[in-house]
């Protein structure tokens, strides 16, 4: 997939500039093609039938009724399941999950695929799936936090340990002059990208082309290859545009693999698009947590202990992804003893996975509220309390931070918000309309990881550039920000660089996740561009006809399509001229990026931020509204301030959603989600959002990676939830220790 639609919009150039989104025209004209927009010749429609119980066995499917429906072509059930090679019950790779590919009649969770219906039309396939009318031998499902006794998690996600201990928290609590012991609950949340998961699968012999939104295009190819038993390089995945991912589109899920397998049996292209309700089961979610936080402080209000134990609800498999909430307490506050531990409770539920700020979102929600409670007990302003416990080195490990401008974030955010003069006691502020008004804050924190990526950069004979990496743009702006980095490395204006991305036949761009994509794919692109320029320089320096002849030892500066001698800018030559004399062959550079393990061990690397919230609450009816939300973030070097600001704002609105809206509501008797649609599962609407402001604080970080980039995709969620919860307390005097906070919670305490 090549550059998005070219556009009449003028944009500036290169890193640090608020370049307008390069895929903007494609997206506002409807020309951006998402997976489900594809329609190969001969295509049929696939619709899966979802389990309507959470645990048990399917005893009957009315396949005769489904097949009798006009336009239904085939019905796949465990009796005639489309064959796969890899074992669906296994977890072949770190990010893979066990799949349900009709291997048996077991139901592990509600909304699990139990049959796949193929139709000539979408209408026929949809009705065919409904007509299957499954019958079950249902068993009592395990639902909720009390379904079983919590057990220590076998391990944390991403290969992290389940428990981390620095110092003796029991002793720290024992010697504290004031302690806090509170428990916070967070609900199961479902990603619900606006684009439901979708796939168009087309076989040609043992070669497979699939259009599907994917956050890890090249990596996923290996997953699909495992299940289908074909070489990875026989698979082409196209994913030029993702209609949102948020962590849910990084790995293959059952309905997608099933569709590919069925397409092979039928030898017809198939399209499957999940319905909205089907998004509540087989495609991941953020697991519910119960978090106990114990904090002790000394007479200087400095933390003697911070003990954070999170229990996460997971599915039946031990390989699962427990929402790593307690990890949020590592790395932030300078407690002299720290412990975080992860426990699990098994439910009959779809496999949880990473959802925007996995662990940090729910962990930060509880931690930042607990910190506010501790500050209240200490009788200290919550910002001052955080400054008293400011960590200049990473608590526990003692590692230096690669950079940390959190102090500046606090100062800038507080100043912009007008935090000074906030009354310490709650329920002190009423606005001119009589609304209870509260101010709260939270610290934002998110790791700055880096993965591995490769890229290719070509300088063409006409002096323009071509860069390639299989990156994924799920809305964060990869099409734009990565092109800016690449253009910089090639010394070309942005409009002279063609960027190919979003397709698995390109160099591996790594995973778009963990807020590490710009650093990783950008790092590879920059390295590739730099390599191409180096080769170009070698040609010029060795060419007696070039003004740059003999300057090879001093290095070159690439700028606006010309190469300049580093110490004598009066000597320069256009790329095209250098290439022409060298025989007119394009020059190719290759690059890769990853973090050397020694750097990873040497520094603590995080993005930081401070979020300040104002809420207004009707004093009688308790309807709530966030009226101001100010975030100041330090995330290293910002490639595109406009896009970074949009991402940070989006994250903060996710914080509003977490605090006030989002929750999957389970029927405890059946284990089924009873609000599995967008009327019942609330996310904020436009009217919920006003008064949003984002600022960034620049950091020069020479350690985090060569480009000094930390990432902004997820940190906005952290800090914000706590800020809103704390503002609600400040407005009303009521601590609600679960999310989302509802009208009925405040009413109950009135």
């Amino acid at each position, binding site marked *: 997939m090549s550059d998005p639609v070219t556009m*009449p919009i003028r944009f500036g150039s290169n890193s640090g500039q608020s370049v307008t989104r390069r895929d903007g025209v494609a997206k506002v004209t409807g020309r951006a*093609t998402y997976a489900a927009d594809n329609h190969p010749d001969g295509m049929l429609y696939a619709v899966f039938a979802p389990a309507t119980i959470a645990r048990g066995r399917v005893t009957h499917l009315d396949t005769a009724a489904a097949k009798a429906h006009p336009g239904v072509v085939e019905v796949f059930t465990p009796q005639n399941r489309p064959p796969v090679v890899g074992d669906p019950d296994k977890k072949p790779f770190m990010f893979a999950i066990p799949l349900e590919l009709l291997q048996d009649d077991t139901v592990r969770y509600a909304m699990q695929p139990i049959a796949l219906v193929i139709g000539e039309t979408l209408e026929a396939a949809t009705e065919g799936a409904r007509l299957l009318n499954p019958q079950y031998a249902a068993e009592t499902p395990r639902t909720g936090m009390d379904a079983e006794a919590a057990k220590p998690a076998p391990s944390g996600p991403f290969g992290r340990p389940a428990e981390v201990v620095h110092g003796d928290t029991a002793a720290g609590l024992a010697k504290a002059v004031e302690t806090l012991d509170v428990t916070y609950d967070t609900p199961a949340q479902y990603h619900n990208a606006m684009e439901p998961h979708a796939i168009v699968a087309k076989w040609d012999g043992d070669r497979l082309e699939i259009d599907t939104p994917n956050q890890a295009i090249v990596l996923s190819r290996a997953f699909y290859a495992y299940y289908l038993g074909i070489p990875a390089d026989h698979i082409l995945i196209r994913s030029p545009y993702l209609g949102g991912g948020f962590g849910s589109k990084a790995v293959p899920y059952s309905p997608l693999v099933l569709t590919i397998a069925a397409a092979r049996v039928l030898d017809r292209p198939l399209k499957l698009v999940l319905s909205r309700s089907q998004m509540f089961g087989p495609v991941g979610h953020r697991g519910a947590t119960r978090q106990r936080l114990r904090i002790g402080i000394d007479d200087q209000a400095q933390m003697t202990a911070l003990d954070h134990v999170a229990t996460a609800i997971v599915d039946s498999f031990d390989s699962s992804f427990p929402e790593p909430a307690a990890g949020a307490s590592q790395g932030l506050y300078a407690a002299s003893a720290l412990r975080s531990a992860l426990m699990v409770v098994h439910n009959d539920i779809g496999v949880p996975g990473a959802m925007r700020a996995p662990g940090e979102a729910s962990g930060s929600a509880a931690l930042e509220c607990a910190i506010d409670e501790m500050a209240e007990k200490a009788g200290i302003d919550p910002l001052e309390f955080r400054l008293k416990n400011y960590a200049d080195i990473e608590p526990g490990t003692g590692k230096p931070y690669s950079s940390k401008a959190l102090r500046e974030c606090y100062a800038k955010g507080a100043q912009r918000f007008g935090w000074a003069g906030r009354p310490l006691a709650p329920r002190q502020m009423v606005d001119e309309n009589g609304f209870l008004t509260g101010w709260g804050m939270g610290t934002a924190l998110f790791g700055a990881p880096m993965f591995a990526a490769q890229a290719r950069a070509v300088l063409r004979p006409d002096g323009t550039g071509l860069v390639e990496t299989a990156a994924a743009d799920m809305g964060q702006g990869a099409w734009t920000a990565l092109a800016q980095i690449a253009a910089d490395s090639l010394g070309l204006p942005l409009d002279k660089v063609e960027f190919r991305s979003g397709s698995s036949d390109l160099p591996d761009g790594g995973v778009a996740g963990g807020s590490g994509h710009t650093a990783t794919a950008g790092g590879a692109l920059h390295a590739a561009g730099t390599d191409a320029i180096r080769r170009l320089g070698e040609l010029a320096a060795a060419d007696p006809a070039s003004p740059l002849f003999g300057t090879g030892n001093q290095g070159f500066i690439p700028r606006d399509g010309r190469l300049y001698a580093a110490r004598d800018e009066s000597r320069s030559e256009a790329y095209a001229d250098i290439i022409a004399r060298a025989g007119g062959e394009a020059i190719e550079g290759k690059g890769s990026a990853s973090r050397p393990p020694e750097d990873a061990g040497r520094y603590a690397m995080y993005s930081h931020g401070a979020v300040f919230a104002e809420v207004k609450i009707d004093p009688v009816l308790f309807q709530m509204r966030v009226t101001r939300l100010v975030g100041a973030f330090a995330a290293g070097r910002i490639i595109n301030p406009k896009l970074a600001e949009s991402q940070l704002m989006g994250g903060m609105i996710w914080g509003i959603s977490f605090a006030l809206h989002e929750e999957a509501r389970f029927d405890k008797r059946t284990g089924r989600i009873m609000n599995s649609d967008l009327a019942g599962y609330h996310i904020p609407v436009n009217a919920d959002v006003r008064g949003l402001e984002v600022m960034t604080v620049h950091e020069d970080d020479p350690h985090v990676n060569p480009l000094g980039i930390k990432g902004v995709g997820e940190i906005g969620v952290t800090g914000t939830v706590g800020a809103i919860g704390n503002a609600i307390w400040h407005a009303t005097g009521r601590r609600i220790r679960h999310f989302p906070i509802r009208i009925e919670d405040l009413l109950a305490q009135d």
Partner: protein
Amino acid sequence: MSYSISLTVNGAQRRVQLDDPRVTLLDLLRERLDLTGTKKGCDRGQCGACTVLVDGRRINSCLALAVTLDGADISTIEGLADGDTLHPVQAAFIEHDGFQCGYCTPGQIMSAVGLISEGHAGDDPERVREGMSGNLCRCAAYHGITEAVVDATRRMAETTERKSA
């Protein structure tokens, strides 16, 4: 039973033969007329991604049966720009970064065009927020969306004034 309907889609007359009355306007556009700019986000009128204009009014195309629309004038995102010249709402969405992943964007833009022509929100941000609340955006680009709609409303009003002057 087959149903023959005639539609004007983005200015062009289309005669459509429907073998199935269950086909919604959304699925007709996407699966049968190759107009995939209009998106399906929920198929139940709960997200607004499928918003199009029917006879100038914004509706959820997922909750309209195509067969009921014989003779209707349909406008979709594909027909909004005038050649290479973007509609003011489209241009404003780009300028104010009123989208991220872009999936809800066609619906947001068609909804904004409908809202502006309804004329009840004007350039009051709070009214725009309310008027655009039928269009969910999971990336949560609401700040930019509101700015874009307010800005486009003003520009379109200025253009109208100039034309009438």
